[in-house]
């Protein structure tokens, strides 16, 4: 039975390799089949017991991550097929695009199921290698520059996490997650390792000091890739941070994570205001969400469950938002917010979906992000007191206002004539949004999965 756990990696990997077969549109069919198969196997794994042997570490959190990854994978593949037609000056052919897309997913599946902190690093770095060229799909100078920044900043950050891995190994003399989580007492050297790990993997997750690649990459990548980055790549980075916090549940490490998370929230919410481009604005919203999630991870207990709810809801809502920006970019041929007007009239489905996606990613009440934030705030109130909580909450409100104000300006305003081909195809984003919305009702399921995982 153990082979079932390998299925997501194997299936998406096979799907990726089959993309190399030189037949017209073959790569699209293969990718769709592979992604659905990966989704099915992820759901199947969810019903199986946890696995901690044969190089695997699959617990409830991993299972949730796998389902999330594969679901966004399916949506992205479907949306990509349609969207690729809008890109004129492609860096490479469609089959190479799908090959890289599938391998990107393989590396993420690999990361969330592997039982070795060293291989965890290898997996995260592999996501860099596989995803870098995807950013430059739309081949222009700015996209290439953004790709370069992504490579160099993220690789540099990840060397820090490699250092962290060395420290962990120096402290425990093992790298197996299973053994590390059962290891008796965290020594001080390991706490240094955990701090470095949070900084290093935080780079990949868009956490404050090294988040600068994120708006560039999201702003210039094609819409499905931005969606994938925001929805699943950043959570995969947070997944590794969760493991580090689990291994070293010391107060100093947690405080450090809370500080970095808070700074991310503050910086991102302030930066939201100065953005002139909608994709960059949504990118800063991702930083803000990841910051909140990191705070929740560090706080542990119910706040951790809150973070996971935020991560799941955000994954679908933000991928919907980025898919929709793809539609807008294709129709209006511009990146800037002020040139996009009256989307609700020109493309009703896109416009209204974008409005709801904007609400969802900023934590408006009916959505899961709101309840996740409530859980985190409650816990924060107990641990850090009222003032700190108020500050963070007010910055969340700032981000809420900043983002939704601009989205409303884009969606409901005086009409202008779009210059590009209008294409109000919003099926995939709407499905994504519906999933994001239904995440509220799935909270008990999330709770059930995380019972054994919760960071104390």
């Amino acid at each position: 039975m153990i082979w079932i756990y390998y299925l997501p990696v194997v299936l998406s990997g096979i799907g990726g390799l089959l993309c190399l077969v030189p037949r017209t549109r073959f790569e699209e069919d293969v990718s769709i089949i592979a992604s659905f198969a990966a989704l099915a196997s992820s759901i199947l794994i969810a019903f199986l017991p946890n696995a901690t042997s044969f190089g695997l570490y699959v617990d409830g959190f991993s299972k949730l991550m796998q389902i999330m990854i594969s679901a966004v994978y399916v949506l992205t593949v479907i949306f990509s097929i349609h969207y690729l037609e809008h890109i004129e000056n492609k860096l490479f052919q469609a089959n190479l695009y799908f090959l890289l897309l599938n391998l990107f997913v393989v590396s993420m599946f690999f990361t969330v199921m592997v039982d070795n902190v060293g291989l965890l690093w290898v997996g995260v770095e592999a996501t860099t290698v596989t995803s870098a060229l995807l950013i430059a799909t739309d081949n222009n100078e700015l996209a290439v520059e953004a790709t370069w920044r992504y490579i160099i900043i993220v690789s540099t950050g990840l060397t820090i996490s490699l250092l962290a891995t060395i420290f962990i190994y120096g402290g425990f003399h093992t790298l197996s997650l299973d053994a590390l989580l059962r290891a008796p007492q965290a020594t001080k050297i390991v706490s240094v390792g955990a701090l470095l790990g949070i900084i290093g993997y935080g780079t990949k997750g868009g956490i404050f000091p090294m988040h600068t690649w994120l708006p560039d990459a999201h702003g210039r990548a094609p819409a499905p890739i931005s969606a994938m980055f925001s929805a699943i790549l950043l959570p995969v980075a947070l997944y590794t941070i969760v493991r580090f916090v689990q291994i070293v549940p010391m107060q100093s490490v947690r405080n450090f994570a809370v500080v970095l998370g808070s700074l991310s929230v503050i910086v991102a919410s302030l930066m939201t205001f100065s953005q002139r481009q909608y994709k960059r604005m949504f990118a800063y919203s991702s930083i803000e969400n990841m910051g909140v999630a990191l705070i929740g991870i560090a706080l542990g207990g119910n706040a951790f469950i809150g973070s996971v709810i935020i991560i799941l809801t955000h994954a679908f809502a933000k991928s919907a938002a980025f898919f929709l920006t793809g539609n807008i970019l294709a129709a209006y041929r511009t990146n800037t917010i002020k040139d996009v007007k009256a989307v609700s009239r020109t493309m009703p489905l896109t416009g209204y979906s974008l409005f709801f996606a904007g609400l969802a990613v900023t934590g408006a009440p009916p959505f899961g992000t709101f309840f996740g934030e409530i859980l985190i705030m409650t816990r924060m109130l107990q641990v850090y007191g009222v003032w700190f909580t108020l500050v963070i909450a007010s910055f969340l409100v700032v981000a809420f206002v900043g983002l939704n104000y601009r989205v409303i300006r884009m969606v409901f305003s005086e009409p202008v004539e779009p210059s590009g081909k209008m294409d109000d195809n919003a099926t995939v984003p709407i499905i994504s949004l519906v999933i994001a919305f239904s995440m509220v009702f799935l909270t008990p399921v999330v709770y059930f999965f995380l019972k054994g995982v919760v960071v104390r």
Partner: protein
Amino acid sequence: MTLNSIFVLVGFIQIALVTFMQWQTYISSVIKTFSIGSYVLAAFLLAAGYVGHEPYLIALGGLTAVIRAWFIPSFLSRMLRRDRWRAREIKPVLGIASTIILSLLFAVFGYVIYAWTMYDYVHSALGAIPVALFLQGAFLIISRRTPTTQLIGYLVMENALYLFGFLFPELPFVVEAGVVLDVIGTIMISGVIVRLKEEPAQNADVDDSTPREDFTELRG
């Protein structure tokens, strides 16, 4: 001469070489300097493995010599444009002299934070050398605009980690192999991007309304 003092020697040779890289504006000489540094590292690993009868270290040394000292530098220099001896840093972020001094300050800073934060746990003053080298590599990335030099900075950081890992029990070989694979992958992908960056005239969209060399969008 103990292994300890050879470690110090190798570490400071690396630091001196990074300083030299900060000094050089010609990219091919930066690449060559990196290659020399990697050869020194490989020789050190081979010697340590030979003396200590550890086949693991010998394998690692061989891997370092082949990948870091030979393959990556030759790959990078092939990635430069046709007249590769002329490729150089045209607009440094800061003056050369100030970057050299700042690089030294980063090394000192690395020593200081190592002494303050990590020394108590590692119990070896020697760890300060890789930490210093690590920060210098990071500074090389910050202080240069040329993608190839930035990559070299990244590789210097990787070399620093190699040195650091030497102070600890070795990582499992599967992890090391994965790390090497990832580094190769990163370099290959970067090679493509460097090519694209260096030849903007051929692939830039003619109708692109954004003026060339203007990355204001990517600021902030």
